[in-house]
């Protein structure tokens, strides 16, 4: 089994969902989460506050730098994520397909590095 990060991509400039549509997507994401839990593929998941709430800390150099805002200026930002466990990419893509349909956003699928003892 491999763990995959399923990132929900929020892109700027997409048409805004109506209040009802937002409610519908909450309901369908909730149903999707329950299915994921029941299937035993769920590892962790969460939705994020908007990128404007982010703070960057850089302690790689001698000084610690603290900056307001997200690190990347990109128009596409992480909106939330699932971490799932799947047999292979095809299974992870299937989960991502259902997740993307539920939250109505594109989902990026990226494998985690294997644990050292699995290498």
């Amino acid at each position: 089994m491999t763990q995959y990060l399923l990132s929900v991509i929020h892109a700027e400039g997409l048409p805004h969902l109506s209040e009802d549509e937002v409610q519908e997507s909450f309901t369908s994401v909730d149903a999707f989460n329950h299915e994921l839990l029941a299937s035993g593929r769920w590892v962790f998941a969460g939705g994020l506050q908007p990128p404007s709430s982010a703070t960057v800390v850089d302690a790689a150099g001698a000084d610690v730098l603290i900056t307001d805002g997200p690190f990347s200026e990109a128009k596409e930002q992480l909106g939330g994520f699932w971490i799932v466990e799947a047999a292979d990419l095809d299974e992870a893509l299937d989960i991502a397909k259902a997740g993307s349909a539920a939250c109505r956003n594109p989902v990026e699928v990226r494998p985690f590095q294997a644990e050292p003892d699995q290498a």
Partner: protein
Amino acid sequence: MPDVDPAALDPAHLDRAISEIVRAEHGRVVATLIRRLGDIDLAEDAVSEALVTALEKWPTTGIPPNPGAWLTTTAGNKAIDRIRREGKRNAKHTEALMLIDDSPAPDPDEGPVADDRLRLVYTCCHPALALENRVALTLRLLGGLTVAEIARAFLVPETTMAQRITRSKAKIKAAHIPYRIPREQDLVARLGGVLAVLYLIFNEGYLATEGPGLRADLSTEAIRLTRQVATLVADPEVDGLLALMLLTEARHAARIRDGVLVTLDLQDRGLWDAGLIVEGHQLVRRCLAANRPGPFQLQAAINAVHTDALDASMTDWSQIVQLYDQLLALQPSPVVALNRAVAVAELDGPDVALAIVERLELDKYHPWHVTRAELLRRLDRDAEARSAYDAALALIDNEAEQAHLRRRRASLPA
């Protein structure tokens, strides 16, 4: 098959025989090794080592009766040696796999071997890989072309092609792209992606009219791979693609004369390959009988109508327009509409066709300008035709086609 007596073959002949065998067997041998080893790189290295051994031994021992089985066994042994030598952490596991799964001699008609190749086709053409990477991997692993050959065929530096292949293999490993025949629901859905790769390889070879000879070989390679897929997957679209390739390839010799492109209506039909046409027509009849029309089958049927006519004037244009109507319904793209318009011109006249063409937004696509030029010319709108030829010429770099268009442009009344 009896052993080939090495003494009966001169070295050049033997070299050619060996390289043909190697190319024909490569996909089969690599496919089996990848399943048994669970590692593409290890499988490829073992197969290359086995090929080196074959090239050393076969000139003296003769080519074994079942070269594919010989290569598979030898490569398997090389892999075990390597795993032991390198003492990999998971060596025991892999070795156990090799021992349990030591499949018998591969026979072309044998199920598991065919399944191995099918796994390889679907892995190389996985939708999670970019199209250009799928093409490269398919030619490398299934087709057995060297990285240098693929690089030359696609006119990119060898390092670029090597990187493309290495990255794709790394992604297959890191993302765990499965090495198996897709589940029922994906099998047909992904077949389209597989066929798209094969058609792209074919066109890359067919449309190349100059440069290194290997580019033309790509068409042959695509036909060979499509034949393989046709034996593995029973689907009328595979037959349709194969028929389309054969009927296109059949006209190859007539397509260029003295470095100038010859359009279909002016080709010397005596130069067409009658054998390929017969086979293509048989395949088209077989797909039509399945009654599950798809884009490749319809394009093949259109080509069958063209190749059925003894000369261009005998072409059944109404049937061609009907086939394009069906194709347009399945694949509503402006390019299909443009091709349909060419047939409409023959049936209903250039003015009707031009009205269709003018509505299409294809001004970045040179055939649109060429079609406009030809229709305007037939309507005696010479000045407009001339600028349409100019617009087409500005968009292409194929020398044979440029020569053809310059000639057409120059033949307009002054």
